[in-house]
């Protein structure tokens, strides 16, 4: 049976795929899938029109709008879509694995409120956040960094499943809206960077320094 735990396991696996994806487009699509899955997750937690709406909204934003936006932003990328993280894919994957392990262990040690839901929520959230951080820290390209940010946000979203009832819809909508606008603004900036900066500079983006 497809439980929340299964879903979260898939989300965890997707983290590794994203970390290992060498093509930017693939990575974006993988994050989109992750977003879709997470969008569906609240349906396991609670029932009612509010949750359905929230779920739909999340799916739309995380699974459709944002990936489309990013794909649009990389549309006129001049250099090839392949990218190499700092330290290489293997190291990044190994670190991701280590981080996931640590998260699983750490999440296990945290005192949890007795919940009828999956016990994987907290570890999955931490692991996804770690994967997001890993992408942010190791990926060179602006787009993959914003992907890292998305993964990070996904991790936070996983945790929010525990609090579905506590967080009012208004706030959820606000969070989603903010996320969307954030990525939208990032997309615009990325586009400008690609258009105005010379590709070599884009690699570093570190002319402002001491």
């Amino acid at each position, binding site marked *: 049976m497809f439980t929340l735990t299964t879903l979260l396991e898939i989300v965890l696996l997707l983290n590794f795929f994203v970390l290992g994806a060498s093509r930017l487009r693939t990575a974006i699509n993988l994050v989109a899938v992750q977003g879709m899955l997470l969008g569906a997750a609240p349906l396991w937690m609670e029932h009612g029109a509010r949750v359905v709406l929230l779920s739909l909204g999340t799916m739309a934003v995380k699974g459709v709008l944002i990936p489309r936006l990013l794909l649009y932003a990389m549309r006129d990328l001049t250099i090839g879509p392949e990218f190499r993280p*700092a330290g290489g894919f293997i190291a990044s994957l190994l670190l991701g694995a280590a981080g996931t392990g640590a998260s699983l262990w750490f999440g296990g040690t945290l005192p949890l409120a007795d919940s009828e839901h999956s016990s994987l929520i907290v570890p999955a959230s931490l692991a996804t956040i770690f994967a997001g*951080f890993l992408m*942010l*820290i*190791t*990926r*060179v390209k602006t787009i993959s*960094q914003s992907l890292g940010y998305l993964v990070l946000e996904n991790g936070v979203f996983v945790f929010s499943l525990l609090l579905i009832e506590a967080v009012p819809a208004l706030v959820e909508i606000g969070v989603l809206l903010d996320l969307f606008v954030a990525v939208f603004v990032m997309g615009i900036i990325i586009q400008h960077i690609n258009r105005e900066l010379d590709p070599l500079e884009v690699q*570093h*983006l*570190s*002319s*402002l*320094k*001491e």
Partner: protein
Amino acid sequence: MNLLIAAIAMIAVSGLPGALMNRRRSSGQFLAAMISTAGSICGLLAVGQWLAVGGQSDLRIAWSLVPGADFHVGLDGLSAAFLLPIFVIPALGSIYGLGYWRQSEHADNGRKLRLFYGLCAAGMAVLVVARNSVVFLFGWEVMALSAFVLVATEDDQPSVAEAGWVYLVATHAATLTLFGLFAALAALLGAFDLPADGGKLSPAAANAAFLLALVGFGFKAGIMPLHVWLPGAHANAPSHVSALMSGVLIKMGVYGLLRVFSFLPDPPLWWGGLLLALGVVSGVIGLAFAAAQRDFKRLLAYSSIENIGIISIATGLALLGRTTHRADWVVLGVGGAVWHVWNHALFKSLLFFCAGSVLHATETRDINQLGGLAKRTPLTAFCFLLGAVAVCGLPPLNGFVSEFLIYVGLFGTLGIPDGAGPSLPGAALAAPGLAFIGALAVACYATAFAGIFLGAPRSSRVEHAHEANWAMLVPMLLLVGCCVFVGLAPGVIAPALDPAIAAWTSAAPDGAALAAELKPLTEQVPLGWLSALGLALVALAAFGGAALAARLRPRFTSSSVTWGCGYLAPSARMQYTSTSFSEILTGLFRWALRPQIRRPRIDELFPHSASFETAVPDSVLESVVRPALRSLGQRILWFRVFQQGNVRVYLFYLFAALLLLLIWPY
């Protein structure tokens, strides 16, 4: 009190009307001088009235700024004593400025200078009457920052900007130390009062407060080795600003020292001992530096350090008096310190005015380019000579009187008069130090005076020199008059010191007993004899002078060139310069002065023309502070590897901070 506050307000705004006027018009400067003088007269009247009538004089207004600190000002003996120079020197300086810093000649900075000249003086007055530390800090910083603007008046010259910067760093270090001091005192005592009730301080806290005060106020006063800012600032500021700074501003450090020491409980012996030692070091090394300077304003500045050393000796004596419960040492120590503050204000301002006059006439500060000015600027030369005699502490002028007090106190530590109480012979060792200071001062000032005013002109700058105008001469002559008057009639002045001594003593937590034993200053030192002998000296010299003049009438004299020991073509360039005058002294103090000497190597039979150069920069600044800061700065630059522009690294910091804080408590 109202009159006093009105006076301070008038001085504060004295430059304002002029600042709003057209920069080409000169009426602003007259207005400034008039308001400032009127304010000062009001202030003097107020202080004089208080000294004559006495009484409680306090003003306390609720002030919600810093919780627990009202706006509280008031007068006591110590405040009154320090107000006097504040009401004399700035007013004279603003009059002097009419001639020295004409608006028509300094259109771009004259207005600014006058605005901050008044503010600086008012800041000093406020800090002196402040009765809590917050008001004190206000006055203090207004003074310090205004003085920065004044020092940096001609900031388009690199040396001026540099001097301003060094000053600023030193003054801010002082201010922050005082922040620490007053904040700690307020925290420990529960109130911002000044003088505070120090009885509650533990010995450790009192020691800490003593050291903080010594550093904080020592920076401003210029006690070695905290004097680093002083020579540059005094030399590069316009001369009436130098007069204000040297004459009054650095004394605010002295005021702070006296004020804070007054209420610290149970001074241990080492406080007084440390002050004596610092005083002797400042005096001797300060004068060694002074003697080695070519720049006469730097020379005067180093001599200010020397005088601060003398004042510090007196302060140490007063503290020793409190430690050992010897009321007579307290009287002589505080009395000597405050009186020397007055005297230094008079003669050092006079000397800086004279220096300004020379600078105005010749446009150089280099003694080696001067000489023979006495013929062209006789009045300035006369004023400088009297100022020099006074600053050397020679009778019959005022400098001698205050040093006399300090000497009597220092000799007193041997147990004189007999049976008056415990003795402390170690402290008396400062007396030979003071004597050495005096003798060095004679050497330094005799050669400086001669280098500037006597002999033959060493450069063409002197040829075109002109005597100062009356706006400059009047303040100078007034100050000469004050120096002579104080020197010849010290008994008239001395009673004004008694309230200061009483205020200092009774502020101590255990001061009541000691205060009861205080005797008036006039009973402790034979000031009558000093004036009698001073007058006798004047009379004797006048008589001798008249006799000699009679024998030197043109009928009996013939004139010739100076005897050149047979050399027939002497030129003015062959005269001894200030560098040569100081050569022996510089050599003796080489270990402290670290002179920079560039001498040519001469190894041929017929050497080509060569040049020889020496300079004595401030060794503490140039050999210690600057290199230390530079190397620290260089080392700190290493930290820039943390900010190399890579956003991924920055994100890693975020992650690291997170992890660190999460695991910190475990």
